[in-house]
């Protein structure tokens, strides 16, 4: 097991280093083979580990941070949760790597790309497998860095680089809370081992647990793009599409969910924390779904949907439905990767155009993309019997089982969100793949529709990274590997439900059984079977309604009118398009004051204040020097006066002293 784990981690790392150091000099193919090879080998190792798995193991490789009682060795912890995530990560990422070979075939910077992608996988795996929090933090920050570098991959565009920076900084704000939580836990228990900490729940005062939980929630919000730190994710779509798939759908954003689930035995003891988690998740899910309804950039729709779906998972964690959350995490990884990759195919085919209003009718032109994409969309929309349906339902059932006004409200919110999800998903599907493509492009090219986009979000609809020769009307030939990679994901997405069928279908779900033994996962009230069935029926109806509404609006004769009206801008659409204008809010509240204060401190604090005071002091002293120097007039009489004055003063002093 130690060997497997070592390989799982080392292979991607080595691949990354190999590509970073040598990738530029070696033939392209070598780099690609190495990059994909290491991930698949890691997957193989994961499978082997799965096969040999018989209970949680802790493996220590060496010391890392070791100072007195602070011990954070390089130690891994393989249990059911980390194992299943490892499997998922290596598998999905493997597919994404393969896909990338096709997607990036024209990009000269492939070495950097694959190096980062590999290191990203490594970091994610460290995050998942870490036994102690500092190591987890290493992975945590590692994915942050890789996402930064990958989002800004096409760095020549300022927006891309800025988006990367935004992602890095925003997630780091959350990380800070996480970091504080780590050192706090160390202070409380003298240890940073996750397994040890999870046994401490009862020994720590409730108020402290609550604070810790909130700190962890803040950390998770950063990585998982939950409110209020969700703003980075939509912008992060600036990166290459496989990157979006890998980072912002399948792996990195789930880190927060993973963290909360991992630490649930510690923090779940506090009702406040649970409620806060659930509330964050629920509101985020709703928030992102509303935003997704109005987006016109294909990838941004998916981005908001990701936020929304992660919101579900967080909601699930908050409701104690950890298994449900994990279940949704897995299925979401499959179908969201699928959707991104499919979207990538479409975008590639359209010369890196992402505005859905400029698309249409792709069903005929790209059938190999359409059908897997549709499968993904069905999952996302929670179409009955797909994987997404079951997993989302598991969460909602968990919420329902909690009862009470708060969770009741959240359930309602979740259901509305489900409806919205279905609507925007199929809006996307129908607009992109059905109907006719809407040409011509506005003059000047660039592939951007500027109509009605008086908002900053339109800036994110970036032009192609590498200006391609204008071959309008033509579609690029997609490399086969790109479309092939969609197939397994589509199958997994559709059949993902098999992983954990609801118990009313006869027996305990696979995941329920598998994960149940992990501390915390067994908990959470189970909904009654009847209630669960009712809930599923409601959800199915909502999903279908959403689908129907989208069908009604975006196909056939109404399509043109709807699109025209949306392009002109619906009332309130700008608000939703810009994600409730959170960016503007933060800009006004934080960023601009920050810049102002920075400059103020520099100019007024350092230069005018401290330096000015010191220079002034120096000048003052120099002026003071003029006094004794000015006394020296050069006339003899002055110096004689000095001497005589000395005599006078001394004698006067003597008189003063000796004669009382």
């Amino acid at each position, binding site marked *: 097991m130690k060997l497997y784990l070592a390989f799982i981690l080392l292979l991607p790392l080595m691949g990354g280093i190999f590509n970073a150091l040598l990738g530029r000099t070696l033939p392209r193919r070598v780099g690609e083979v190495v990059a994909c090879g290491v991930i698949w080998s890691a997957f193989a190792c994961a499978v082997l580990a799965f096969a040999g798995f018989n209970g949680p193991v802790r493996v220590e490789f060496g010391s890392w941070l070791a100072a007195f009682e602070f011990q954070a060795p390089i130690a891994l912890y393989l249990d059911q949760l980390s194992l299943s995530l490892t499997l998922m990560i290596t598998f999905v990422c493997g597919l994404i790597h393969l896909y990338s070979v096709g997607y990036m075939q024209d990009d000269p910077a492939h070495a950097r790309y694959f190096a980062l992608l590999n290191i990203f996988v490594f970091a994610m795996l460290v995050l998942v497998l870490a036994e102690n929090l500092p190591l987890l933090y290493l992975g945590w920050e590692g994915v942050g860095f890789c996402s930064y570098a990958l989002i800004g991959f096409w760095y020549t565009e300022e927006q891309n680089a800025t988006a990367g920076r935004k992602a890095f900084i925003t997630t780091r704000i959350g990380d800070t809370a996480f970091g504080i939580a780590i050192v706090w836990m160390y202070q409380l228990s003298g240890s940073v081992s996750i397994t040890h900490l999870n046994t401490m729940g009862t020994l720590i005062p409730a108020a402290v647990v609550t604070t810790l939980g909130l700190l962890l929630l803040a950390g998770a919000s950063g990585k998982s793009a939950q409110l209020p730190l969700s703003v980075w994710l939509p912008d992060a779509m600036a990166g290459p599409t496989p990157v979006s798939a890998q980072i912002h759908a399948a792996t990195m954003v789930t880190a927060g969910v993973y963290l909360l689930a991992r630490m649930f035995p510690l923090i779940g003891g506090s009702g406040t924390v649970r409620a806060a988690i659930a509330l964050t998740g629920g509101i985020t899910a709703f928030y992102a779904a509303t935003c997704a309804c109005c987006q016109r950039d294909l990838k941004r729709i998916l981005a908001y949907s990701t936020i929304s779906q992660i919101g579900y998972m967080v909601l699930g964690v908050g409701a104690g439905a950890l298994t449900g959350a994990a279940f949704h995490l897995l299925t979401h990884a499959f179908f969201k990767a699928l959707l991104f990759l499919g979207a990538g195919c479409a975008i590639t085919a359209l010369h890196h155009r992402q505005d859905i209003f400029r698309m249409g009718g792709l069903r005929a032109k790209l059938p190999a993309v359409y059908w897997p994409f549709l499968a993904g969309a069905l999952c996302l929309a929670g179409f009955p019997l797909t994987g997404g349906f079951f997993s989302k339902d598991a969460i909602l059932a968990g919420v329902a089982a909690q009862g009470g006004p708060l969770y009741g409200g959240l359930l309602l919110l979740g259901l509305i969100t489900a409806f919205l999800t279905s609507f925007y998903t199929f809006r996307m599907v129908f607009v992109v793949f059905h109907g006719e493509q809407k040409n011509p492009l506005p003059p000047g090219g660039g592939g951007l529709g500027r109509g009605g986009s008086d908002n900053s979000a339109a800036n994110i609809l970036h032009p192609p990274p590498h200006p391609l020769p204008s071959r309008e009307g033509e579609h690029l030939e997609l490399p086969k590997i790109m479309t092939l990679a969609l197939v397994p994901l589509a199958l997994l997405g559709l059949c993902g439900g098999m992983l954990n069928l609801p118990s009313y279908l006869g027996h305990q779900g696979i995941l329920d059984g598998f994960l149940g033994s992990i501390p915390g996962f067994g908990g959470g009230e189970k909904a009654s079977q009847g209630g669960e069935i009712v809930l599923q029926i409601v959800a199915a109806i909502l999903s279908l309604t959403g689908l129907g509404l989208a069908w009604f609006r975006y196909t056939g004769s109404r399509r043109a009118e709807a699109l025209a009206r949306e392009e002109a801008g619906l009332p309130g659409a700008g608000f939703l398009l810009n994600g409730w204008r959170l960016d503007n809010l933060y800009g006004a509240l934080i960023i601009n004051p920050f810049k102002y204060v920075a400059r103020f401190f520099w100019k007024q604090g350092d230069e005018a204040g401290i330096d000015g005071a010191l220079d002034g002091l120096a000048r003052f002293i120099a002026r003071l020097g003029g006094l004794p*120097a*000015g006394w*020296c*007039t*050069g*006339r*003899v*009489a002055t110096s*004689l*006066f000095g001497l*005589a004055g000395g*005599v006078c003063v001394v004698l006067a002093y003597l008189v003063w002293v000796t004669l009382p």
Partner: protein
Amino acid sequence: MIVPLEHILLLDGLLFFLGMGGLLAWRANLIMMLVCIEVMLNAVMLAFVGGSARWGSADGQLFAIFIMALTSAEVSLALAMVVYLHRRRKTVDTDQFSEMKG
């Protein structure tokens, strides 16, 4: 001792400070400044002679004689310098010799 030492000292203090006052005031004429210095040194001699008389020791008188010798040496050099400077600047006003200052 014909008079108390204090009286001699008072006289000599008076002369000494008269000389000093003159020295300070007569900045316009170098010769007069030297004259004033003579007055001062003379007063010092008076003090020594008074002290000698008070204590009955020869040291005071000898000191006075030495001062006299010293004075003549200094005056001769000083007057040479007056001549030297007067030759260059045609003045004995010491305020004129203030090229260096600050």
